[in-house]
């Protein structure tokens, strides 16, 4: 156990976390050079594209240190976004230390601090790593000063590195061995293993990633997942190299995987504790929380013929994403589809992109909404997360909506702008402090509905990309909402309906009408767009039709050129939905979300 080191790498976005992970793995030689792909841990297409880690991956790296001893380093990768806050915390809870990567020219930034706090919460050893020292703009002294003054860490421990150039990797590995404590734990005690990830394998079922705190586990053991008391028999235990490698047992301090005939990944909850049924631990590890969807949206196939194929794709997708929930839904405008729940807006976008890139689905997603709580005149309380089921307004006695505690980090000079956005978004009880010089931290209590409506983009734009935020569910509070409907050529597009704070309705309606006008292409017929509350039209816009759209001459029997053009348009139409007599591009449905809130 004294030769094991469990660690994570944390960083502000783009400070080079994935590249550093690559280099560490490469250095260890576990991956033959020719099989090496950059950013080996981010193996989902979308992660490579966006350069962010969504699903954590773990890898076990053998390392012979300068002290002559052989060590086993477990690198536990963490997802990099606010929606996955809880998953990050469980991954960190499985470590004893972290590498805190800081860009040598950018210096300490918002997420550096946020990440540092997360690591401190888990009492982890923090090793600062100054990356990208090869850049001409690198200012190592300044970063060291920031490390000392702003992070209150020992700049003497900071390691200089350029992951890109492979500089300093050896020093990092040595520091991991030297500074990060070996795991503690008792192999003789009853088993406690923390689940920090679960993925699905077509042949083996659920692969549970876990950190063993006490005890040991081997094939044949009967285990209990403590949050639900479900039991399984262990078929295989192992560690992660580039592929899974089975080992005879996992014991206290180690990180690895368990295969136990768990057919459905959804039976496994991140943060849950595994123990042995025959000799159970008296209490589970602390920090377990069931992740619940907070953002809801419907997914429809662009072409209604593709419903079955979408259904299959969702079922397959779900196998690897326990946080995603869905059920059948149907819309008059869009036909059969699914109502889905997500951890947040990024989670939603990830699901959409993965359905499109990995499962080749063409989908339309409707306006995301939160879960509202209505008390009706007969004192019955109902929760609604779908505008289709909005109750009869005359019967609503009281409405409540979820509030979150939102924390925003940004350079101090954006204080005023953030304050204004916070107040525009109905943020109240604001508090602020200066965690370090030049940096401000603001907190608000804010309706979640305001956060999921374009907040991320807004914050990025007013802080020129320097602001970041985090939020946590707080409580339900009374609110006054209405249902806003969108009509196109007189036909209500139910998939565009939304539940909205009454005072925002006019402004939003105007924005949506304008946005749709900009997103729906000009067509052969005039398109009237209206926004209504009940039967009252509160905003409208018009797309005037083409005046002329024809080629004068198809000369000498050349029919092919125009036909090819039509075939191309037909291909493009797969991304469009014909609603009534209007062709609506798929992105129109989501574009209404990206409206400047002014």
């Amino acid at each position: 156990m004294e030769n094991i080191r469990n660690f994570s790498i944390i960083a502000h976005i783009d400070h080079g976390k994935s590249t550093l992970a690559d280099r560490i793995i490469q250095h260890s030689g576990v991956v033959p050079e020719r099989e090496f792909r950059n950013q080996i841990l981010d193996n989902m297409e979308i992660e490579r594209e966006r350069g962010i880690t969504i699903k954590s991956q773990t890898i076990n790296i053998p390392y012979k240190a300068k002290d002559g001893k052989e060590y086993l380093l477990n690198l536990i990768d963490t997802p990099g976004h606010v929606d996955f806050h809880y998953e990050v915390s469980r991954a960190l809870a499985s470590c004893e230390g972290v590498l805190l990567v800081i860009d040598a020219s950018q210096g300490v930034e918002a997420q550096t601090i946020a990440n540092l706090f997360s690591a401190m919460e888990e009492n982890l050893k923090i090793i600062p790593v100054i990356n990208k020292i090869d850049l001409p703009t690198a200012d190592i002294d300044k970063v060291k000063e920031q490390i000392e003054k702003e992070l209150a860490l020992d700049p003497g421990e900071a390691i200089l590195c350029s992951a890109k150039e492979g500089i300093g990797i050896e020093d990092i590995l040595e520091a991991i061995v030297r500074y990060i404590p070996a795991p503690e734990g008792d192999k003789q005690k009853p088993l406690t293993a923390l689940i920090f990830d679960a993925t699905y394998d077509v042949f083996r079922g659920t692969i549970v990633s876990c950190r063993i705190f006490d005890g040991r586990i081997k094939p044949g053991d009967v285990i209990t997942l403590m949050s639900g008391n479900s039991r399984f028999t262990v078929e295989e235990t192992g560690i992660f190299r580039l592929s899974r490698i089975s080992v005879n047992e996992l014991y206290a301090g180690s990180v690895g995987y368990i295969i136990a005939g768990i057919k459905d990944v959804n039976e496994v909850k991140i943060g849950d504790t595994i123990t042995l049924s025959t000799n159970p631990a008296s209490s589970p590890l602390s920090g377990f929380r069931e992740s619940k969807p907070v953002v809801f949206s419907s997914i429809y196939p662009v072409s209604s013929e593709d419903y079955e194929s979408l259904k299959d794709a969702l079922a397959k997708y779900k196998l690897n994403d326990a946080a995603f929930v869905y059920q059948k839904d149907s819309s008059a405008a869009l036909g059969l589809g699914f109502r889905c729940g997500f951890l947040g807006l990024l989670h939603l976008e990830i699901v959409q992109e993965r359905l499109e890139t990995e499962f080749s689905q063409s989908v339309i997603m409707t306006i995301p909404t939160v879960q509202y709580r209505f008390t009706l005149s007969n004192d019955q309380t109902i929760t609604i997360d779908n505008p289709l089921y909005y109750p009869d307004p005359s019967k609503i006695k009281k409405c409540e909506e979820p509030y979150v505690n939102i924390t925003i980090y940004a350079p101090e000079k954006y204080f005023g702008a953030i304050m204004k956005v916070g107040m525009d978004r109905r943020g109240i009880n604001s508090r602020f402090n200066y965690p370090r010089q030049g940096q401000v931290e603001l907190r608000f209590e804010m309706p979640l509905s305001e956060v999921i409506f374009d907040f991320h983009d807004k914050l990025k734009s007013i802080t020129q990309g320097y602001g970041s935020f985090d939020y946590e569910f707080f409580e339900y509070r009374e609110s006054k909402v209405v249902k806003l409907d969108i009509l196109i050529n007189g036909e209500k597009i139910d998939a565009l309906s939304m539940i909205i704070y009454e005072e925002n309705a006019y402004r939003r309606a105007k924005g949506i009408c304008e946005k749709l006008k900009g997103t729906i292409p000009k067509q052969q017929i005039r398109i009237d767009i209206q926004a209504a509350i009940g039967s009252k039209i509160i905003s409208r816009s018009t797309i005037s039709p083409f005046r002329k759209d024809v080629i004068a001459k198809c000369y000498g029997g050349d029919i092919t050129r125009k036909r090819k053009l039509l075939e191309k348009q037909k291909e493009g139409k797969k991304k469009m939905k014909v609603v009534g007599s209007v062709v609506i591009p798929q992105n129109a449905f989501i574009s209404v979300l990206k409206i400047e809130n002014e």
Partner: protein
Amino acid sequence: MNKPGLYIHIPFCRSKCPYCDFYSIISQEEDIEKFILSLIKEMSFYKNVELCREFGTIYIGGGSPGILSAKQFFRLVENLNKTFTFSSVSEFTIELNPEDVSKEKVMILKSAGVNRISLGVQSFDERDLKFLGRRHSINLIKNVISIIKSAGFILNVDLIYGLFCQTENTWLKVLNDALSFEPEHISAYQLTIKENTPFGKMMNEKKIKESSEKKQADLFLKTSDFLEEKGYVHYEVSNFARNKKYFCRHNMKYWERIPYLGLGPSAHSFFNEERWSNYSSFEKYCKECGADRLPIEKKEKLTEQQAKIEKIYLGFRTQNGVPEKYLNGENAEKIIKQLQKQELINRVNHKIISTKKGFLVSGGLPIYFI
């Protein structure tokens, strides 16, 4: 009536018009000789092909077919007669520019069986003609038309409109001048500025501009109203005829998907749901023919789906319309109703037919149904 059409492309011009993107080159005498030899070779490839033994229409286009001398023209026709059967040809058109017309030439054409002349007039306004880079004068045009008319040809007057220097009044005057000769047929093409033409280049350099969409649309509708009032039938987007008898039968084959054979560089052919086109390059064309190979560059067999797309798009271009049975996409019925409401189409005997307003946007109608 459904016999295939024969198209022959003469790829030579005396000069290149700045708006034209059809294939043509400025010829030398020896090029023309070389071309005729190649063309005769190309014909021979089709000599014993059952499908194209007999034709219903002939159309000699270009380029400027008028560039051929009487001798060259006779050689061409002689060889056509040796290769194919023309006993039931009802329409034999040649395209001519006014500067290529003389009494003698017209007589020769007549004796060779040509019965329709499509005259590249383009305008009756000096300023327009200069802008379009045409070589002929108004007086010449008037002279030429009377020669053609008195020789008893069916006359098509080719006109171009929508020039940005043109007003509604100057254009209507052009139309009026055209009507004074009582042509059986008028093709009125709205100027489209194409990227790969001198006009395209000038537009990029902002020396000229296209008329606004609204102006183009207004002129189009005005043209249609005006000619209909004078008794012409607006039977295709850009084509008008004094009556049904004078619809261009050859061009109708393109729009009705009746087979046709195209000879010469860049010519297109269509038989048995198969489309092919010849090399556009004159050199390449001659080289292939010289090497006893068909000068075909591209060939494709249409799928049922592709055929349907063509039927829809061509149908919306003509008065024939599109049979309802082809219009069965998602929400087709709703869309038809909406298009009817906007007066873009009519429904007649299970056919959906573009109105003149519909012609104007017919390029965008098929996408609703495919």
